[in-house]
C-alpha cells in the first residue's frame, strides 16, 4: 500500500492519465513510435534534471545548467568546425570534461568562499552566456558548417530508439546505482538531510557539495553536445530559460528543495511528465495562448501534491528505519 501512495506511483499515474486524455483527442500520440520520440525528446531534460537533483539534495541549487549546456555545446560545435574529422568519442570526452570544469567553478566558489549557491550560479549563468558571446560575437554555427557525423550521432537509431534516448537511460541507470550504492551517493543524502550530523560522521559537507556541482556540470556538458547536434544549430540563447524547467522537473519529481529527500526515479518521472505535457500540447490543437497556462498549472498542482505528501517525512533518509520505530 505504501508503494501506491508514494510520490513515484502518483506521478506515474498522472502521466498515464495525461497520455490517455491526449489519446482521446489524438490517438496517434500513444503509438509506440511516438512514445519513443517523446522519450527521446525528454532525454536532455532527464539528464539535466538528474544532475540538478544531486545538487538540490545537498541543499544547493544550480541555475547555470542551461548556460553550461549552451557554452559547452557551442565549444563542441566550434571544435567540430575547426576539426571536422575529429571522432565523436573525443567530442563526447570534451563535453564531459568541459562541463565538469564549469561545474567545478561553481563548486569551488560554494565550497571555499562560502557564497550562497543561488548567487554563485546566477552569476556563472550570466558569465557562461557572456563567454559564448565573446567566443562567437553572437554569430550562429549552422547545420551546413557542422560535419555530418557530428549531427548524425544523437539521432542514429539503436533497437528503434535514437542514441539520444539511450543516453537518458544510461545516465539514469548509473545515477540509480551511484546514489544507492556508493559512498558519495549516500553522503550526498546525508549532507542534505542534516549537515551538522554529517560533519560528526566525518563527511566534508563543502567537498560533497563541490562534487555535486561537478556531476551536475558534467551532465550539463554532455547534454550540451547532444542538444547542439540534435537541433543542428548553436547560438548564444540556446536552451534559454531551460534551467527553470530543470528545477521544475526535480520539484515535480518529489525532490525536496530543502535538501536530503528525493529519488532518481521520481526525478525521471518529473521530467517525463513535463516532456509529455510539452509534446502533447502541440498535437491536441490547444490554443497557444493556453499552453503556457496549462504547463504552469500542471507544475503548481504537482508541487501542491509534493508539499502535502512530503510534509512530515521530508527529512527521513531511511524509510525502513522509520517504520521499525
Amino acid at each position, binding site marked *: 500500500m505504501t508503494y501506491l501512495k508514494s510520490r513515484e506511483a502518483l506521478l506515474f499515474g498522472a502521466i498515464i492519465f495525461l497520455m490517455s486524455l491526449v489519446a482521446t483527442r*489524438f490517438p*496517434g*500520440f500513444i503509438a509506440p513510435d*511516438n512514445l519513443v*520520440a517523446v522519450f527521446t*525528446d525528454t532525454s536532455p531534460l532527464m539528464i539535466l534534471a538528474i544532475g540538478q537533483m544531486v545538487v538540490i539534495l545537498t541543499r544547493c541549487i544550480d541555475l547555470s545548467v542551461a548556460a553550461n549546456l549552451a557554452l559547452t555545446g557551442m565549444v563542441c560545435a566550434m571544435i567540430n568546425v575547426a576539426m571536422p574529422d575529429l571522432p565523436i568519442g573525443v567530442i563526447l570526452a570534451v563535453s564531459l570534461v568541459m562541463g565538469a570544469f564549469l561545474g567545478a567553478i561553481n563548486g569551488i566558489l560554494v565550497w571555499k568562499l562560502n557564497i550562497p549557491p543561488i548567487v554563485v550560479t546566477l552569476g556563472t549563468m550570466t558569465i557562461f552566456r557572456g563567454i559564448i*558571446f565573446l567566443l*562567437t*560575437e*553572437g*554569430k*550562429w554555427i*549552422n*547545420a*551546413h558548417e557542422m560535419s555530418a557525423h557530428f549531427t548524425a550521432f544523437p*539521432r542514429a537509431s539503436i533497437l528503434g530508439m535514437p542514441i539520444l534516448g539511450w543516453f537518458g537511460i544510461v545516465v539514469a541507470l548509473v545515477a540509480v546505482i551511484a546514489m544507492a550504492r556508493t559512498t558519495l551517493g549516500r553522503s550526498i543524502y546525508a549532507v542534505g538531510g542534516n549537515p551538522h550530523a554529517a560533519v560528526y560522521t566525518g563527511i566534508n559537507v563543502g567537498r560533497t557539495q563541490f562534487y555535486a556541482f561537478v556531476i551536475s556540470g558534467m551532465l550539463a556538458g554532455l547534454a550540451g553536445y547532444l*542538444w547542439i547536434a540534435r*537541433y*543542428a*544549430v548553436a547560438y548564444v*540563447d*540556446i*536552451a*534559454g*530559460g*531551460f534551467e527553470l524547467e530543470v528545477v521544475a522537473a526535480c520539484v515535480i519529481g518529489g525532490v525536496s528543495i530543502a535538501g536530503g529527500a528525493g529519488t532518481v526515479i521520481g526525478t525521471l518521472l518529473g521530467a517525463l511528465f513535463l516532456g509529455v505535457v*510539452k*509534446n502533447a*500540447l*502541440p*498535437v*491536441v*490543437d490547444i490554443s*497557444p*495562448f493556453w499552453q503556457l497556462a496549462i504547463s504552469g498549472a500542471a507544475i503548481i498542482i504537482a508541487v501542491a501534491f509534493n508539499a502535502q505528501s512530503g510534509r512530515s517525512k521530508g527529512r527521513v533518509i531511511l524509510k525502513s528505519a522509520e517504520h521499525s520505530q
Partner: protein
Amino acid sequence: MKVAKYMTSVAIAAGLFAGPAAAEDMRIALVVKALGIGFFEAAAEGAQEAADEIGGVEIIYTGPTDTTAEGQIEVINSLIAQKVDAIAVSANDTDALVPTLKKAMQRGITVVSWDSGVAQDGRQAHLNPSSNALIGNMIIKLAADHLPDGGEVAVLSATTTSTNQNIWIDEMNKVMGNYEGIEVVSTVYGDDLADKSYREATGLMQSHPELDAIIAPTSVGIVAAAQAVADAGKIGEVNVTGLGLPSEMAGAIESGASKSFAIWNPIDLGYSATMLAHQLATEAATAEPGAEISIGRMGTITLDDTNAAAMADPFVYDASNIDAFKEIF
C-alpha cells in the same frame, strides 16, 4: 630641447584633431539592435558601400552587446556627445528610444530609423525593409509556387505577441484568395526557441498527415522546422519556407527540406538607410509625407503619412544563389 619636444607634441595633437575633420565631412552612425549579428554586419557592409559611393562620409557602426533598449540609449547618448551628423537606428523598442532621439534631433542631428522602427516623434523618417503587405504576400507565394495543385500549409510563428510576425500573418491571410486550393490548417508558436519550434513542427506533421508546407516567418523557427522535417523523413513531402538567413538556411536548402525562402537583402538595407540619412542630413531632401527620396541604386522611395517607406519586395533565396549569400550573412 624641451621646447622642441613640446612643439612636436602640440603639432601631433593638432594633427590628431584636424585629421578626421579634413578627411570626412560627414559622420553617419549606424546603430544596430546588437553587435555580432550577421544580418547587421551585412547591413554595415552596405552602409560602407553607400559611404564610398557618396564620398566624404564616415560610417560609425555601433550598437549594444545584447538587444536591449537601455543599451541602445547609452550608445545614442555617446553618439550625441560625439556630435555625429546623422543616426540611423534599428530600434529594440518602439517607444523607449524616443526621448533620447528627440534630444539628438534638438542638437541638429538627423535621425532616421530602419529595419525596426521607432515611434514617429523619435525620428524624421523610417525605412522599412519591405512593406508588411509585400512580406505577407511573399511568404504564401513561396509555399504556393511549389504547390501547383493546391495543398495544406501551416504557419510556425515566433511568440504569440511578436508584432512583426502577427502583422505578416494577417497580411498573408488577406491575400489567401489569390492562391486557389491553398489552405492554412493551423498556426502554432515556437517562441523563437529551437527546441519548442522543433516540437511544434513535429506536432504539425503528426496532427496534419497531409501537410504540404510549413511557413515560418522567423529565423529560429524556420531552421528548427527544417530540421524536424529532415528528422521525420519527410523531405520532399513537406516543404519548409518563410523568412530566414542564408547562412542559417544553407543546410536546409542543401538537404532539400526547404526549396526556397526569403529575407530582405541586408546589404541593400544598410545601403538604403545610409543613403536616406545622407539625403536628409545634407538637406537634399526633406522628410515630409509624400516626399520622393532617391536612395541610389535602389531607386526612389515615397514617404507615407507617417514618414515611413518600404524599400523593396523581400529577396528570394534558393539553391541557385544560396552559396553566394551564405558567406555574407
